[in-house]
């Protein structure tokens, strides 16, 4: 993606990622992409790609070098996620590295090479309608069956970092997948989002001694939300580039439709909204990088992620709608590549919090800052 507006606004101050590394990511992603979605069964994990990522040390990009990781930061990881999303490659890099790897490292466990994801187990199988209320879970701590819904890539994971709440607090275990019941499910874009059922009674021997704080759970949630924001920003850039290509080559009334001012203005608005999503997301990635380096607090991360998800979520409304409008009927077909970008954008903006949720989070943080505290919050 070489849109000059996006790059001019996003990269001037922010990008500290080596361009050669980005080129490596891009070459790898385009060589393996795009992933092909079956409308019924969704997307399959490309095992050849996964092996290649592992060989190159990219599957555990942010893992500590002592643990077999590459010692990189959120910045490099975001660059990799961006290139994968731009090439339409579905892979659980973020779940494996930024979520499961991070969580286990926090608990003093050095994650091995096995593919991992994270499942936050909620209420038991018979408590479907109760929703994710933590206090409620604590009361039911004795019930053995716990369920996590929409767990990304659980079917492909060799091991699942499972979290559940007991009266004492949040517990965690690194559970081999064969000790879990996994029911396949898909998100809007056909990515694996499976239901994971765990029998707590049988996990007792695996539970780590750590009791995790609510703050850790909050940080996990923010990291997951940011992971999706990074993918979403890239998906919007794909929508823009596909649409630019289309309007420049589609001829109607004897000329490329890009010659019409209405089309030009529509594309300009798509580009502007996409650039805004990119700017907000890049800013949040910078904060996440500082957070991992221990130089900023969780509240900073919370605001930056909420801003990114709000901006990117609203951008998706305009970009997806206009991209389809500009493509005409061809863009609505399975055959055409547009849905890989538009459905991914819509899927990702609705995972780990709706756009409305993130708007409300920004409002709550702004309100807590107060009228005089708002500007310091924005410019922090």
């Amino acid at each position, binding site marked *: 993606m070489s*849109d*000059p*507006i996006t790059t*001019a*606004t*996003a*990269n*001037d*101050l*922010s990008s500290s990622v080596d361009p050669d590394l980005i080129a490596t990511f891009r070459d790898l992603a385009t060589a393996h992409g795009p992933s092909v979605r079956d409308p019924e069964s969704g997307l399959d994990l490309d095992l050849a790609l996964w092996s290649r990522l592992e060989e190159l040390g990219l599957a555990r990009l942010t893992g500590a070098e002592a643990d077999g990781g590459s010692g990189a930061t959120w910045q490099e990881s975001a660059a990799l996620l961006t290139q994968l999303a731009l090439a339409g490659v579905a892979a659980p890099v973020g779940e494996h590295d930024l979520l499961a790897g991070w969580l286990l490292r926090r608990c003093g466990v050095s994650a091995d090479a096995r593919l991992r994801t994270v499942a936050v187990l909620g209420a038991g199988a018979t408590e479907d309608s109760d929703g994710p209320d933590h206090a409620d879970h604590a009361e039911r701590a004795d019930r053995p069956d716990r369920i996590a819904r929409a767990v990304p890539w659980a079917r492909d994971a060799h091991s699942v970092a499972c979290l559940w709440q007991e009266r004492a607090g949040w517990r965690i275990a690194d559970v081999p997948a064969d000790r879990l019941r996994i029911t396949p499910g898909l998100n809007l874009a056909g990515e694996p989002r499976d239901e994971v059922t765990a029998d707590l009674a049988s996990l007792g021997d695996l539970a780590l001694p750590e009791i995790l704080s609510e703050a850790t759970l909050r940080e996990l949630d923010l990291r997951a939300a940011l992971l999706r924001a990074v993918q979403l920003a890239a998906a919007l850039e794909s929508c823009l580039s596909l649409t*630019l290509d289309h*309007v*420049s080559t589609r001829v109607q009334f004897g000329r490329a439709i*890009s*010659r019409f*001012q209405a*089309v*030009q*203005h529509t*594309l*300009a*608005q798509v*580009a*502007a*909204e996409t*650039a*805004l*999503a990119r*700017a*907000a997301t*890049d*800013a949040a990635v910078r904060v996440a990088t500082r957070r991992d380096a221990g130089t900023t607090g969780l509240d900073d991360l919370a*605001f930056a992620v*909420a*801003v*990114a998800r*709000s*901006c990117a979520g*609203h951008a998706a409304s305009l970009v997806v709608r206009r991209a389809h409008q500009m493509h005409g009927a061809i863009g609505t077909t399975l055959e055409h590549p547009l849905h890989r970008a538009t459905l991914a954008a819509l899927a990702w903006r609705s995972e780990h919090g709706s756009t*409305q949720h*993130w*708007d*409300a*989070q*920004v*409002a*709550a943080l*702004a*309100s807590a*800052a*107060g*009228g*005089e505290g*708002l*500007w*310091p919050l*924005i*410019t922090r």
Partner: protein
Amino acid sequence: MATTGVGTTLIPDSTTLSGLRAEVRAFLDEAIATGRFVPGVDTWLGGYDPQLTAALAERGWLGMTIPVEYGGHGRTFMERFVVTEELLAAGAPVSAHWIADRQAAPSLLQYGTEAQKQRYLPRITRGELFWAIGMSEPDSGSDLASVRTRGERVEGGWRITGTKVWTSGAHHAHAFFALVRTAPLDPEHRHAGLSRFIVELDSPGVEIRPILSMDGSHHFNEVHLDDVFVADDLVVGAIGDGWAQVTSELSYERSGPERFLSTYRLLAALTERGLGGAETGAYVARLTALHHMSTAVAGGLQQHADVSSAAAVVKVLGTALEGDIADLADRLTEDDPGDGELQDLVRRAVYHRPGFTLRGGTNEVLLGVIARELGLR
């Protein structure tokens, strides 16, 4: 610009910038607390307060990017950006010096003669010389190449006749750059034959007439130039080079944080009162993202990059947001002066809203700029 050189080494580190931010913020907090000014909406255009301008100049916050040899402070665009953001977020009345500092100074530095720089830049930095914009005319809005103000060659200089309009602050300003046709319009080369002159507004033949805005406020003017003599030493750059100068100046006019912060005080007031819920949150998020984008634009200016399309994006999104904040506040409140402070902000925002997406290049024109950058035209 002359002293900043090329490259990235002059981008100040974030500690320097946050220190400067804190310094400006403390000054403004104190000024508000002592009643020196009341924070408002759109005060960079309509809030005239030469005493505040003088106080800011005293602290070195005017002419920041002007080189020291011209009386300036030789600081960076990033530092200036931080100061301007703080002034806007405080809703401070800064219109007296805004145009001089924002666009006249960089234009003079880029195109002015040595004598012109020496004559004007030190006084701009001291907060003593105010500038206005002499581009639009009654029949030339978005289509600036159609200006009809004419310049005729005479002994020792030029005689200029025509009318400039929407000239904010002309009644306080000492000079403007007049965009003038000095050769007949060639339909094949519409941008040729334009030149710029420094017109000192106390010159014989200059008449400034107020144009009141719909709320009764006075910042717009019509400036009539009736055979005004401008000496050769006040020609800016080369005769015939006016178009390039104007487009360059517009990039300074368009790229700053006043393109998303004009209604910031109103957004803060909504937040403080817990009004608007998630919708207010979405606007806070957008404003924050625009702060990041605008920071990147300032960084680009620092590195002498072409920021015109990135600036157009900020302006298109930012000015729409300014208006959306006004509209949200208007939808959330009844027009009943129960909360005087909020009421004042809402009314002023609603009065001023139509101008946000017009001034400095309409959003329609800017979408065209973005489309061109996208390769569509």
